[in-house]
Each structure stands twice: as C-alpha cells, then as structure tokens.
C-alpha cells in the first residue's frame, strides 16, 4: 500500500475498493429541497425561538400595562408615555430620554470616529505593508486574540492604569505635570470611550482588512504609474474600494455602542445614562413594559442608522 492509499484508507475507509460500503448505499435518496430544510431547519428554529419570537414579545409587551411588581396584559401606552414623560412640557429643554439619547449618540460618534481611524490604519498596514502571508496571519491573530477573551476583564484592566493612584496619575505627578491625581481618568465619559475603543476596534479591523486584501494590487500600481501621489491613491483608489468594509465595520461598532450598557456601566461607575442602560434600569425595577418600550425605540433608531448605512453598500454581496 503506497503512501497516498494509506492516507485515504485512514481518512475514508469507505472509499477503498473492496470495503464495498459505497456500493451498498441505500437506493432511496431524499429530495434536495428536503435535505436543505433538514440542514438549515435547526438553525432557523433557534433564531425563531430565541430571536424572532422574543423580538415580537418585546413589541407586544411594550404596549402592556404594569404596576409595581407585575405585568398586566392589557393594552396601554404607559410604557411609552412614561418614557417620554415631560418631553413636551419641558420644551425647549430636552427631557431625560432626549438627553440620554443625545449622550448615547455622542459616545457613539466618538467611538465610531476613533475605531474607524485606528481600524483603518491597522487594516491598511496589515493588507498593504505586510508582504509575507505568515506574518500577515500572525499579526492578524495578534489583533484577534483579545477578542476571544473576556470584555469585563479588558475593562477592569484599565483600573490599575487610570485609577486615582494608577500608573497614569502617579506618572504625571512624578513628572511634575500635575500636583493632584486627575479624577476624570476613570469612571467618566473618557474612560467609557477609551474602553469601547479598546474593546471594539477589532470589529472595524476585520471587515476593512477583508475589503483591502481583495483590492487588486495592479490597480494601485496603475495609479502610481499614472502619476498619482500616495495620498491621491489612498483617497481615489483604496478608500472607495475599502468602502464596503468600512460600512460593515461601522454598522457593527455603532450598533454595539448604541445598545451597550455593560461598558458604560462598569467604566462609567454606573453613573452615566445611555440608551441601553435605561432598559437595564427599567428591568431591574421590574417595569417590563417600559423596558420593552425603550427597547423598541432603541431598535427603531438602530434600524434607521443601519438602513441609512446599507444604502451605501449591499451587505449580502460583500460576504
């Protein structure tokens, strides 16, 4: 038995002549569409039971009534009216929900801008400057590994650096730049944005890198030969061709930050209000219809953002 046959025997005893199982196959064949259903059905059922139906329940419950301790399954707009309480009376000032969403959008914009900047250049470096495949894989892996570790740990990790007696503060005091520890480093909007950028730049790097490696290198050479400067090549060739990745990455980052309540909670010292945080607070107070109403509002806003962005690019084509 030569080498290849040995391997084949190991990998697939059924295919070696003489073992005969291939011939002994059952003559009845399932219809292809039935097989597809069998294959895709289980996943569809999981999404149905744990994603689609729950979403429907969120919408239904948002129109239910509630009292201090339970749900009352009767139609009521209270979840919404409670949420928008004071929005008209306080005009022209913003009501609580308006302020909260404004704050969330601001955080969202800051994190989006920073992750896009960092993600773009990291992806650019990996795609265009790292020539060897092995190095490219190794460095991509280096960027991916933190994604497989715990987000909470990566948040807590900032405490010894940014805390009152943290490395940054003691460093600044030693160099004489400040006399007293800076308080806004931790449990502030600054630390929230820092942690979100730290956690989610990965979601920008991957899709942008994916778009970039698909760019035909001869296009860049052609631009160079035609006399384009590096900057012109970047703006007129690379950025347009990397746009799908940029949009997909942006959708990821924006939806994550819009709904985030954990990073904002932990890094904001549970003091910063945000769209996701309201939902959590309402659930903890057992006001499920109000929580659901907030979830519906958040869903609509997220959906609007995604629709706007996917106008720019056909997501399905890019996968």
């Amino acid at each position: 038995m030569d080498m290849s046959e040995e391997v084949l025997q190991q990998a697939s005893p059924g295919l070696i002549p003489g073992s005969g199982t291939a011939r002994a196959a059952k003559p009845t064949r399932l219809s292809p569409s039935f097989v597809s259903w069998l294959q895709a059905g289980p996943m569809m059922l999981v999404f149905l039971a744990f994603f689609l139906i729950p979403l429907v329940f969120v919408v239904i419950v948002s129109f239910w009534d509630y009292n201090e301790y339970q749900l009352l399954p009767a139609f009521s707009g209270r979840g919404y009216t409670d949420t928008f309480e004071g929005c008209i009376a306080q005009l022209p000032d913003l009501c609580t929900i308006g302020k909260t969403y404004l704050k969330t959008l601001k955080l969202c914009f800051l994190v989006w801008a920073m992750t896009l900047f960092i993600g773009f250049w990291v992806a650019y470096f990996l795609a265009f400057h790292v020539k060897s495949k092995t190095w490219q894989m190794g460095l991509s892996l280096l960027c991916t590994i933190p994604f497989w570790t715990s987000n909470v740990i990566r948040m807590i990790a900032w405490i010894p650096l940014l805390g009152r007696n943290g490395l940054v503060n003691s460093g600044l005091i030693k160099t004489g730049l400040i006399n007293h520890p800076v308080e806004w480093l931790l449990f502030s909007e600054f630390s929230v944005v820092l942690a979100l950028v730290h956690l989610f730049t990965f979601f920008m790097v991957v899709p942008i890198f994916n778009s970039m490696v698909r760019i035909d290198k001869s296009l860049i050479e052609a631009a160079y030969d035609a006399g384009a400067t590096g900057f012109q090549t970047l703006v007129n060739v690379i950025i347009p061709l990397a746009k799908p990745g940029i949009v997909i990455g942006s959708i990821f980052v924006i939806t994550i930050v819009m709904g985030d309540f954990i990073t904002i909670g932990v890094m904001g010292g549970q003091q910063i209000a945000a769209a996701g945080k309201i939902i959590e607070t309402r659930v903890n107070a057992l006001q499920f219809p109000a929580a659901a109403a907030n979830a519906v509002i958040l869903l609509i806003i997220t959906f609007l953002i995604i629709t706007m962005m996917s106008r720019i690019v056909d997501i399905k084509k890019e996968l």
Partner: protein
Amino acid sequence: MKEGRPRSFYVLAIFFAAYTLFLYGPMIAIYVLSFQGPQGGLTFPMNGVSTFWIAKLFQGTGIVDLGAAFRRSLLLGVIVMIVTVVLSVAAGMAFRRKFKAQSILFYSAIASLIVPSIITSLGISLEFRIIDDLIKAHWNENFETSMGLLTSGLGAHLTWTLPFGLLIMFAIFNRFDPRLEEAARDLGATPWQAFRHVVLPIILPSVIGIGLFGFTLSWDELARSSQAIGAVNTLPLDLQGLTTTVTNPDIYALGTVISAVSFTVISLALGTIHVLNKRQAAKGSDAGKGLV
C-alpha cells in the same frame, strides 16, 4: 516599483505596535497584579509577589462561589460550542444550494448579530416569563420557572454564536472546490460519505475555528446572559457584579483565571488547526499519483 520599504511602512509599523500595546498592555497589567502579595492593593506598585489571591479563589473563602460558577460557565460553553459547530456546518451545507427561506435565515442571522444584545436578552426573558405565566395559569400552579442556564441561557448564547458560525461557513465554502465532492460522487459515494470522507476532512481546521468562536464567545458572554440566564450566574456575570464592590486583588485573580481558560482553549484550537493544516499540506494532495 519601489526600492526598499517606503517611509509610510515605518510610520504605520509604529502605529501598529502602539495599537498592540494598547490592546495587550492593560490586560498584562492585571495578570501581573493578580500575583500581588497578601497586603497588595488594586494598583501598582506590587506589594510582594504571591499566589495568595488566586489560591483564595479556589479555597472558596473568597468573594464568589467560584467553583459553581466556573462549572456552569464551562458546561454552557461546551454545549454552546457543540451546538454551534453542528448547526453551522449543517446550515453552511444548505447554503451551497438554493433553497426557500434562504434569505430569511441569512437576514435572521445578520439581524441577530447586530440587534443590540440587551434587546435580545430582554425579549428572551419576556418570552420565558410569559411561558411561565401560561404554565402557572393552565397546568401547574406551583411551577417555578422555565428560565435557566440550559434553556433561556443556552438560547441567548446561540443567538450570538450561530451568526459567527454561519459567516465562517460562508467564508469556507467560498474557497471550497466543489469538484472534489463531485469526484467523490462519481466514485459512487453517497452524499453522506462524500461529506464525511471528503468535505469534512478538508473543512475541519475551519470547523475547529467555529468551535473556538462558539466556546470563547459563550465563555465571555455577558450582555445577552444578563436578563436571560435565570437565577444563577455565569462567571463573567459574577465578575461584573464584583466591579462595583471589590477593593482588593481578588477581582484580578478571577480575571486571570478566566483568561487562563480562554488562552488554554485558544492555544488548543490554534494548535489543532495548525497540525491539521500541516497534515493536509503534507499528505492531503495526491493529485496525479493515481488515486486508489
């Protein structure tokens, strides 16, 4: 076209190095700090070096019942991993042909990935609350709850891991040569045999990748578990609970232990993938050698 490396290479290389430092620096700081001496605090400088805080976790005298939460998270992670691998591979195979409801499944997966976790989590918790109420009203007044680690908790984790699994399957089959399977069929293999002996061995490294995603995403999952896990906590939930109350390095020790599990799983998976790829490269192609 160019001689040597352009200046932009060095600028971006420094940028990349800074990014890597930004990624890993803080994590390494807490791994180091979890080996504080018994008198150590939450920040540098180190106050002696010991395994005091890590040992304290395992003695059960510490802040949480680490053992129980650890076992729960591990159990859930392994189940999520297995289900994710099986369902993703199956659905990935289905997507190689056209079938009805294809785009419904695709968009469900994408939506499940990008709808904010808190909404999915709230939805699942409402769903199970309503189921509980129905059971109490119609069948059994003493019924407690159907919510739990392996019902609502498992479902919540799957809404997060399955989209990743499916997208990885797309990537796999995008570069899969269907002629290999046709060849198997021409040799008389049944669809199952063609899958088991031809397709599966080829895609196995990537399938292990799906398993890696399945386990690690579940092991560290927080946002979706938060409302949907029921009465018990997973390890990350315990850890999050501690962030507001704890003032000594227990929390770093717990973080180090959780990360150690993550890194063990990552290395095992990557090691296996590496070995499989090597084997495929060395023995895989017998093209032109006269098969069987």
